[in-house]
């Protein structure tokens, strides 16, 4: 049965004089390599140029804030439970009076860490979150010299405050909420 139409019958005939000269074949090969001079190369010069990601690209997580700049995360732990790689740890704390502008609800995450060496960027944390607090963005984890640097804490994960830094907020948020529901 023929699976593809690329099958070629092998020719076992002894080569004729023209073929044994090899020079025509070499010239043919050189013509092929020469033709590649005029081909566009597919290189993306990485730091200057970046490959466009697909709309559903799953990159590094961010911890989201609401419109008033309050953290949405309530440290319920559902993301940590959902995480198949067990990359997420957190410690919950109770919101004190006077902290209402910082945290949206009475309970918040005092410590929130994602181990980027464990994370498989599956997006289950995003699906599990009932508070819209964690999202996967269009960026990826930067290279680092030490393992320690790959454990992202709240400083690395929290999105910039939309009230004080709207530009940074929009940049970090990227396409979330616009093209992606």
């Amino acid at each position, binding site marked *: 049965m023929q699976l593809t139409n690329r099958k070629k019958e092998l020719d076992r005939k002894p080569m004729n004089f023209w073929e044994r000269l090899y020079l025509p074949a070499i010239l043919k090969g*050189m013509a092929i*390599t020469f033709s590649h001079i005029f*081909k566009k190369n597919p290189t993306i010069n990485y730091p200057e140029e970046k490959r466009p990601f697909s709309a559903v690209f799953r990159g590094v997580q961010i911890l989201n804030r609401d419109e008033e700049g309050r953290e949405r995360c309530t440290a319920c732990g559902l993301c940590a439970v959902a995480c198949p790689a067990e990359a997420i740890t957190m410690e919950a704390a109770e919101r004190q009076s006077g902290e209402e502008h910082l945290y949206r609800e009475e309970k918040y995450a005092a410590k929130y860490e994602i181990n980027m060496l464990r994370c498989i960027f599956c997006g289950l944390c995003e699906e599990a979150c009932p508070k819209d607090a964690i999202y996967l963005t269009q960026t990826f984890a930067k290279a680092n010299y030490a393992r320690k640097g790959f454990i992202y804490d709240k400083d690395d994960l929290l999105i910039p405050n939309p009230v004080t830094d709207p530009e940074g907020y929009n940049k970090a948020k990227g396409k979330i909420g616009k093209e992606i529901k």
Partner: protein
Amino acid sequence: MVLLQIDWFIFFEKLILIGAIITLAMVVAMYSTYAERKIAAVLQDRTGPNRAGPFGILQPMADGLKLFMKEEIIPTFSSKSLFIMGPMLAMITALLTSAVIPWGTAIDVAGRIVPLQVADVNIGILYVFGVISVGVYGIMIGGWASNNKFSLIAAIRGASQMISYELAMGLSLIAVLMISGSLQMSVIVDQQVQHGWNIVYQPLGFLIFFICALAECNRTPFDLPEAENELNFGYHQEYSSMKLGFYLFAEYINMFMSGVVMATLFFGGYDIPFVDEAALGNAWWVGLLSFSVLMVKSILFVFIFMWIRWTIPRFRYDQLMNLGWKKLLPLALANMIITAVVVLLLNK
């Protein structure tokens, strides 16, 4: 009484010329390394070096600096003096070839006719061959002194390959010499300027010469002495720092020089096609123009060398010997005899 009368003008003229030619060879070799990488990249749909300077133009400088900065390692088991002599010999012989090449038409400097040639010896081409043969010693000594089996195998391969291909090369050249009737490089070029390029009379001779030149320069498909995947780098495996740099450099200088020799012997040397240089006189710009014509021709050869390298895979050792002894040598002999007969009949 003046016992020793030295023409100081000639002394300085030659000194400047030697300096200029060596600088030229070095610069061309430097940028050959860049060109090799760039051409390889372009032929393989890649970008090539583009970080050092615009379009990576400073890459050779960066490479040279890197090689100078590297630690110099001399293996304890090697014989030290020979180990140092290897790259020296390779470099010296690579540069020596340039001495007899006529680089351009003679120019007029303050009323004196200065030929753009260091030494117009009457056995010019024989001298070139002599120097090329000595070039084997650079590889041989380097491979031997490394005290490493891979290096030794590479050195033996290199030596036997060069000796095998020198025969066919010499024979194909004899046909050229019969046409021009002289071993003197300037005469060979003059003869081509007057009667047309040798490539017209000796296409087969040129093909043989070209293939042998590839083999002499240890270029693909004849790069067995430095076969990366079987001998891991061959004869310069134990070399580091600028000693390695010298070997690599010498290879590129050899390549450039063989391009120049081929242009001189078969493509009219500095002859500008369809232009009569003799009518233009000895102005400096004519010299410069003819020199640049020679450069264009030889750099074209360097490009073809690289183009071949990134197209054809390496020969197996027995294939190499078969091609050299059973194909090229009889072909060169036949070419020589036919040329001899034709020259004899036409002269009668």
